[in-house]
C-alpha cells in the first residue's frame, strides 16, 4: 500500500475438480475456449496432463544429455591435461595417456554432471524456488498438494476476469474462484 498505484496484482481464476479425469476434461475445454496461461495443480503427476495442457516435448532430456556430455569431455580433458600433458609422471612405466584407466573417472563425471543438470534443470525450468505465488492466497489451494485437482488460468491485466470465471464454472469444476495477488 505504501507505493500506491504502480502495483498491478496478477489475477487468476482457480477451479477445483472432483476427480483427475474431470480435471483433464475441464483443462482441455478451457484451452479450446482460447485461454492461454492455463496450468493444473495436482498432488501427483496424472497421465495425460501434458496432452490436456498442450505441452510440447519436455526439455529435460536434452539438458541432461548436454550435461552428461560436458561431464565426459571435461573429465577426459582434465585427466589428459594433468597426467599426460602438464606433468607426466612415470609410475611403474605406465603410459602417461592411458585411455582404459581414464574410463572410471570419465564415467563418474558424466553421471555427476548429467544428474546435477537434471536436478537443476527441473527447478530452473519451473522457476523454483518461488516461495510466494498468488495462488497460495486461496485457502482451498492447500488441497492441491494433498488430494485436490485444480486448474488455474491467469487473466492478463485489462481482460475480463468474470468471463474466465464463467468459463471455468461451465467446464465441470466443483468450485471456481478469482484469486488476486496481494501486495507485499
Amino acid at each position: 500500500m505504501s507505493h500506491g498505484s504502480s502495483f498491478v496484482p496478477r489475477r487468476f481464476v482457480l477451479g477445483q475438480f472432483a476427480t483427475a479425469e474431470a480435471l483433464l476434461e475441464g483443462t482441455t475445454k478451457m484451452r479450446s475456449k482460447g485461454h492461454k496461461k492455463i496450468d493444473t495443480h495436482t498432488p501427483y503427476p496424472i497421465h495425460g496432463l501434458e496432452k490436456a495442457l498442450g505441452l510440447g516435448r519436455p526439455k529435460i532430456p536434452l539438458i541432461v544429455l548436454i550435461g552428461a556430455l560436458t561431464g565426459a569431455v571435461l573429465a577426459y580433458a582434465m585427466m589428459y591435461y594433468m597426467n599426460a600433458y602438464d606433468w607426466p609422471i612415470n609410475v611403474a612405466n605406465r603410459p602417461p595417456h592411458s585411455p582404459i584407466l581414464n574410463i572410471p573417472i570419465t564415467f563418474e563425471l558424466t553421471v555427476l554432471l548429467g544428474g546435477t543438470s537434471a536436478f537443476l534443470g527441473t527447478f530452473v525450468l519451473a522457476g523454483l524456488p518461488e516461495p510466494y505465488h498468488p495462488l497460495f492466497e486461496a485457502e482451498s489451494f492447500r488441497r492441491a498438494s494433498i488430494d485436490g485437482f485444480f486448474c488455474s488460468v491467469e487473466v492478463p491485466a485489462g481482460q475480463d476476469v468474470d468471463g474466465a470465471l464463467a468459463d471455468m464454472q461451465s467446464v465441470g469444476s466443483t468450485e471456481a474462484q478469482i484469486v488476486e495477488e496481494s501486495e507485499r
Partner: protein
Amino acid sequence: MSGAKSSAAMPVSRDPLEPALMIEGQQTDATLNDSLFDYIWKLPSDGWKKLFGVALAGFGLLVIGITITLAKGIGAWGNNIPVGWAFDIINFVWWIGIGHAGTLISAILLLFQQKWRTSINRFAEAMTLFAVMCALLFPLIHTGRPWFAAYWLMPYPSVQGIWPQFKSPLVWDVFAVSTYFTISLLFWFLGLVPDLASLRDSSKSRTARFVYGMFALGWRGSGRHWAEYKWAYLLLAGLSTPLVLSVHTIVSFDFAVSVLPGWHTTIFPPYFVAGAVFSGFAMVVTWMIPAREVLGLKHVVTLKHLENMCKVMLATGMMVSYGYIMEHFIAWYSGNEYEFSIFFRTRQRGPYAPIYWLMIFCNVVTPNIFWFKKARTNLGVMWIASILINVGMWCERFVIIVTSLHRDFLPSKWEMYYPTWVDWAVFAGTVGMFSTLFLLFLKFVPAVAATEIKELRHELEHDAHEHAHGVAAAGGAH
C-alpha cells in the same frame, strides 16, 4: 486395525491365490496424507527419545574417537605394518555397501517398474545418504591428516604443481563416492519436494508451514512442472543405476588391482556389488520392522514388501555364496601356492578363523532360511536374520582385508592385528551417527514417499476400474 476393519467391510472374501496387497484398507488421497504424516505432527514418543539418547551418545563416541585420532595420529589405531588397512577400510566398505540398497530400490526397481518399491524407497534412500556419510569419514580420517589429503586427491591447481595420479583406483574412489553421495542426495531431495509441499499444506502451525514451505521451494503441483519433473526423476534413476554398480566396482578395484593373494581376483566387482545389495537390504529390514510399527506405516509397508526384501536377500546371498565358492575354486585351480595358502590355510585355520566361519555362517547359511515362506513372513526370524547378515558382511570385509594383509608372501613379515579402543570407538561412533541422523529423518521427514503412494493408489484404482469395466463389457475396447 484399519486393515481388519476394511476386510470385514468387504463383501467377498479374498482369493488366497490373488497377490498380496501393496496398500491395505480402503484408502483415499486424504487418508493416506493423514496417516503417512501423522507421526511428524505428533510429539516424539518416549521410545524415540530413548533411542535418540543412545544414538547421540554413540555419536559422542565418534567425536571422541576422531579427536584422539587427529590429535595423536593414526598410531592410536591398531594398524601396523603389514596390516596398514584395518578397521578404517573395513568400515568404509561396509558402510558404502549398506548404502547400495537405497539406490537399488529407488533407481533400479523404478526402471523395472516394480510397484512395491514405492513404499520403501524414501526410507532406503535416506539410509543410503547417512551410510555414505559414515563411509566418507573413514577414507578422510585414515589419511591421518585430512587437511593435507585434499591436494593428493582433489584436482586443483596448487603451488606445488602436482596433480592427482588418475591411474590410481584410490583416486577413482574419491570421484565415485563423492558422485554417489551427490547424486543420491539430489535424487532423494527431488523425490521429497512434492511431499514437503504436502507437509507445508497440511501443517497446523505457522512455524511448520514456514519451515516446510522453505524446503518445498514453492512447489505447487503445476502440470507444467510435473511434465519436466517426471523426466528428471526417470533420468536420475537411469543415471543412478550404472552409478551404483560402478561405485562398489571401483571400491573393489582398490583391492583387485593389487598383487596381494586374496585381493587379486577378477570376481571382485560383481561379488562386491552383490554383497553390497545383500547387506543394504538387511539394514533396511533391520530398521523397517520396528519403524513401520512405531510410525504406523503397516498399511503401506505390508508383509508383501518385507517378503520381497527377503527374496532379494536370498538372491544376493546366493550370489555372495557363489563368489566365495569361485574365490576358493580359482585359488585351487590357479595352482598358485600363495593363493592356496590364504584361502585354505590362513582364512580357514589361521588365527582369525573364527571370524571366517562366522562370515560363512551369517552370509552363506543364514539367507537359506528365506527359501521358506514361513521365514519370509515371520518378523522375528527376518529381523534376527537381517542382523546376522550385517554382522556377516562386516566379517567378510574383515576377512578380506586383515587376513590377506597379516600373512602375505614372507613369513618374517607376518604380524597380528588387534584393534584398539579408539578403533572400536570410531566404529561404534559411526553406528551412533547413522542412528542419530536416521532417527531425525524418521521424525521430521516423511519416511514413506506419500506422493508416490498416492500416485500408486490412483494407478491401482484405475487398473481395477479398467479391469472391472473390461469384464463387464465382455471384451470391450481398451
